């Protein structure tokens, strides 16, 4: 490196010129790259949108631009169980968002703020539990829920129960956030005679808006993408499916030629509201994800 330094120092003027040219060059390269990346990233979404308006036939074709445009696919969606799936997913997402947020915040706040005897063993236990594939537990949960009458047609309460009950295990991101709020704030309030509950209500919660929104957002988005648990709990009953399971079945080998374009239309109807919501709250999501990764 030392030889480099000498060379560069001895030719300051030329180095300056070279820098400007090379910067312009590298910027052009980066722009080209970013444009290519954007195209690759957008192609599937553009395709799915275009295919949802294609009405000349319903099966998969090798071209993108429809030969005949129309809303038939969207209209026909409402003659299937799709609205029911949509409603199932929406309700379970909404209730999960509320309950899961409460549980996750309780858990992470406690583990961040309190020092009690069982704290470390508890965290270690949850780390170990997290190493078991969660899917395994589905076999037993399905049978238990079936005994409770929460499967098939009545899948929504069962789904909510499954999503919410174990959500305390996902405390890492919000614990990381609470860790960054100075403890001196709590202590000052405690000295002034506030109870622990008042500290949480009056001091911590107002400061925690970003992490609350992050938790609500991720909890709300979870059920929209859940496939495994929903499929188990619906167990082939169309009325109990969520959008993921229902639309997945449309792409089965024997269904795909009939439902391919309708899958696209359904996908668009699911993606649009979720995407808009996500884009509006993107800032909070980025904060949460970044914080979570740094704290491990």
């Amino acid at each position, binding site marked *: 490196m030392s030889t480099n330094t000498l060379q560069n120092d001895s030719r300051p003027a030329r180095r300056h010129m070279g820098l400007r040219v090379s910067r312009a060059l590298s910027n052009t390269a980066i722009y080209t790259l970013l444009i290519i*990346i954007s195209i690759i990233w957008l192609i599937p979404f553009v395709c799915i949108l275009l295919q949802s308006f294609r009405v000349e036939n319903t099966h998969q074709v090798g071209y993108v631009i429809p030969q005949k445009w129309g809303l038939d696919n969207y209209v026909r969606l409402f003659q299937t169980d799709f609205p029911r799936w949509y409603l199932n997913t929406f309700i379970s997402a909404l209730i999960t968002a509320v309950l899961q947020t409460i549980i996750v915040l309780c858990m992470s706040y406690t583990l961040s703020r309190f020092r009690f005897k069982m704290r470390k063993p*508890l965290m270690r236990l949850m780390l170990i539990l997290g190493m*078991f*594939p969660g899917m395994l537990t589905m076999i037993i949960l399905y049978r238990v829920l079936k005994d409770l009458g929460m499967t098939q047609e009545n899948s929504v309460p069962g789904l909510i129960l499954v999503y919410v009950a*174990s959500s305390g295990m996902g405390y890492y991101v919000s614990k990381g956030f609470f860790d960054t709020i100075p403890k001196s704030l709590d202590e000052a309030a405690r000295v002034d005679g506030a109870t*622990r509950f008042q500290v949480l209500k009056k001091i911590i919660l107002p400061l925690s808006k970003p992490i609350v929104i992050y938790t609500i957002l991720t909890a709300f988005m979870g059920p929209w*993408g859940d496939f495994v648990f929903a499929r188990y709990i619906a167990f082939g009953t169309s009325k109990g499916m969520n959008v993921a399971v229902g639309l997945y079945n449309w792409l089965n080998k024997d269904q795909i030629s009939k439902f391919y374009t309708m899958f696209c239309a359904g*996908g668009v109807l699911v993606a649009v509201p979720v995407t808009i919501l996500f884009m509006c709250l993107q800032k909070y999501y980025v904060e949460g994800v970044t914080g979570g*990764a740094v*704290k491990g």
Partner: protein
Amino acid sequence: MKQYTDLEYLKLSKGQRLLYRIAGFFCSIPKKIGGLFVALWNLIKTAGSAIGKEVSDIWSTFVNGDWKTRLSFLVMGFGNLARGQILRGLLFLLFEIVFIAYMILAGGYWLSMLPSLGKVGPTEEYNIIFDTYVTTYNDNSFKILLYGVLTIFFIIAFIYTWRVNVKQNQMAEKILATGKKLKSGKDDLRSLVDDQFHKTLLSLPLTGILIFTVLPIVFMVLVAFTNYDGTHDGYYNNLFTWVGLDNFNTMLNWQSAGGGQSYAATFGEVLSWTLMWAFFATFTNYFLGMFVAMAINKKGIKLKKVWRTVLVLTIAIPQFISLLYVSKMFAKNGIINGFLMNMGWIQQALPFWEDPTWARITVILINIWIGIPYLMLITTGILMNIPQDLYESARIDGANAWQQYTKITLPYMLFVTGPYLLTSFTGNMNNFNVIYLLTGGAPTNPDASSAAGAVGYTDLLITWLFKITTGAESQYYLASVVGILVFVVVALISLVVYNVLPSIKNEEDFQ
């Protein structure tokens, strides 16, 4: 192996140091195993002495206590009630009544059936009136196992509560002896939002985890030692029962049972692909994501927000839509092949999902499409935290972009995101969605046809597990064995990495 002194160690390059640490870890394994036994022995010793202490403590409480305390040994909460702590006393008493009632009415039965998991299966009897065979369902192995485990949990909880009850009497006696007053029920309730607030906050989440995670995991681990499957569902067709280690023998046996390759060979294949997949999925995403983040963050690049938003779309849109659609795009009659053929670049459709190697490469590539946006978001934040003067002084010293990257950016990133890389590696090992929605494990591996679950070339352990449970035979016991092995592998990797990682950060550092 050669031990370096600190000074020699510092002379090594980065790569050598890592190798040295890894080698050091493996060389220390025998010592660690020895240490494990010592630790185990110490654990037993401490546990023994702790139990001994508890017993002697309980005994001395009984001998030295007054009659209220002694009666509390039998009637829980009596001491509390007699000393005026009505709320606590009633709760203890209620718990004891519920426990005894449960044990008499149900718990005793479940516990007694646990060793056999049910004796009488469903029976068929000829019914003269209806002129048909009527099936009577008798024992339910599934419920016996489930409630048996629950009953054991309940007994442990009862013993713990009983011990707390004894301790409280002892403490109450002590407090009264000094002339102070005991806490009233009102004080107890108030402390639940104050000193004991953590108990209030944790009660709901922990109950959920206990019932919906711990109990199912214990149950499923036990299933690995039974023959629970579709034809032995424990109630409707046949009972299931304990089979010892048979299932592990099946899974880890190198001898094939009747044609095809053995289970162990299949397992080995799936495991090695799982590890390969996790490695590529983690590191391609990591480096490419970092690269994209750096490209967007570069000085002089405009429209930063637009680029980011385009990428973030893949996070916003539910994965099942994007993945299912992309999987169809790469199908034989999909858009990609159609486009390439229309352009005349290829004559035949490319076998994206039909050829094992093509399929494996395609899933890794599509996973890059899914994963880069996350990494872009994560690394953007961290990249901005790197002190800019580091780069400035490097530039003054004449370091080029590559040197700046390898000497400043990369070490910093690796240091900060080390734990994240580990969790993302194990997360990818269990990345069900990407594999299942893209390929469903296809193309099927003909060599592994003797194994349950129609193993394919892109199947991870986790998708294999899922396929075993949903197949015609639903061999839950095998799925459970696979699940346990997944746990073992993940735990081993985590253990090794945590031992090799240079910095295991203390969580208190951030406070």
